[in-house]
């Protein structure tokens, strides 16, 4: 079978309302492997909604999302295979150890040797020594690392992150940045959604601003975050 040649992610005319409130009014987005897109926006701008639609968790009111050429619908579970999500919740079970949590995730994805995959995933984020700990016993920074291990265990081509730096101290944030910059160069596409630009700025190859339900800006990331901030403010205000 020919490997898929087109863009990794194509979102077309995405729209979504909550009752009378129109959160997204028409979003178009194309992403190639190797890109890291930073979507900035104020609180309530619809960033989480956009991310959930891109992840296939939420059905858009209009438009469609294609990942590796395959349309995301609830009825097609396999279309979701190439997707990984890191939200500010860890998606882990408190009563299971990290190894058990990741083994479960591996089984859900149909990986052939789930326990080995779990151990490898933990080793990749330097958590091998905590394999027998439960999420309750971990600090926020370690928990975030475990969440990333979970998200990456099946080798997704598209990694989506929702406010990944929330609640992390400087050291944990630096570790996270290191992890993510490795992943980006591994032929993946990343989408980072945040209202705080500073921490994710250097990771991004592209930056967009979500305001008024649309992408007000979508351009290559250049220069320092400081220079961008006024343009961000202007785009958000409009």
């Amino acid at each position, binding site marked *: 079978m020919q490997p898929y040649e087109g863009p990794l992610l194509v979102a077309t005319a995405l729209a979504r309302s909550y009752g009378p409130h129109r959160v997204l009014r028409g979003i178009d987005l194309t992403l190639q492997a190797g890109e890291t897109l930073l979507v900035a926006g104020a609180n309530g701008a619809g960033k989480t909604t956009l991310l*959930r639609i891109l*992840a*296939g*968790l*939420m*059905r858009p009111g209009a438009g469609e999302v294609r990942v590796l050429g395959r349309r995301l619908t*609830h*009825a097609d*579970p*396999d279309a*979701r*295979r190439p*997707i*990984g*999500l890191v*939200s500010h*919740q*860890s*998606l*882990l*079970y*408190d*009563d*299971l150890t990290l190894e*058990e949590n990741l083994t*479960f*995730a591996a*089984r*859900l*994805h*149909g990986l052939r040797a789930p326990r080995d995959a779990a151990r490898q995933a933990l080793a990749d984020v330097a958590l091998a020594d905590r394999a027998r700990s439960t*999420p309750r016993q971990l600090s926020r920074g370690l928990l975030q690392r475990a969440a990333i291990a*979970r998200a990456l265990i099946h080798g997704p081509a598209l990694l989506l992150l929702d406010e990944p730096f929330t609640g992390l101290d400087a050291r944990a944030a630096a570790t996270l940045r290191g992890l993510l910059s490795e992943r980006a160069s591994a032929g993946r596409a990343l989408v980072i959604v945040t209202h705080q630009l500073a921490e994710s700025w250097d990771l991004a190859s592209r930056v967009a601003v979500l305001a008024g339900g649309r992408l007000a800006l979508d351009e290559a990331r250049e220069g320092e975050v400081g220079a961008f901030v006024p343009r961000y403010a202007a785009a958000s205000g409009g």
Partner: protein
Amino acid sequence: MGNVIRLALTVAGKDLRAEFRSRTALLSALVFAALVLVIFNFARDPTALSAEVLAPSALWITFTFGAIVALNRAFAMEREHAALDGLLLAPLPREALYLGKLLANLAFVAIVEAVALPLFVLFFNVDLGHALAGLIGVIALATIGFVAVGTIFSAMAVRTRFAELLLPVLLLPFMVPPLIGASALTARLLAGRPLSEMYGLIRLLALYDIVFVTLSTLLFPAVVDE
């Protein structure tokens, strides 16, 4: 199809492993069983009401409570850390998720029933005679019915503020046919009636189970998919 079963068992296995770690739900159900046992024995007039007349009622109250505890736990565990998103993100067909939760709930209730039944037989002096196998079958049929509906309702109720109250309110009418069927069959079994008198009720229970497991499986995506 085999994939759906494998994934359902994976989900069920995870649920049971997590429950055995914490044991809180299981223990509360078993403690309740002991409570019912004691209360029913001491709160009656022994000359007016023999213990074995009360046994079926006491038994079904215990089973029902065990079911509700199991049902509440099933999706409550998915709310912590938004674990449900992890399930919905995976290439997991929604039928597999529903069936996995159903299997876990049934296993949980089965444990409660397996512990409660012998205890009640013992303390309520019930003479089961040859009825044991039939009784187990009846209990199983009835339990599958309302746990099937309870599983999908608990997925809904857990998203509201009064989940523990809403679930019983929604589930109550759905417990009527299984409970009517189960109690009528239990009475007939214990009285040693011939099998031919029970076919109608058995068919009713079986039909109920088939219809509501199928329906709940089909409707489950409407509940979990945004």
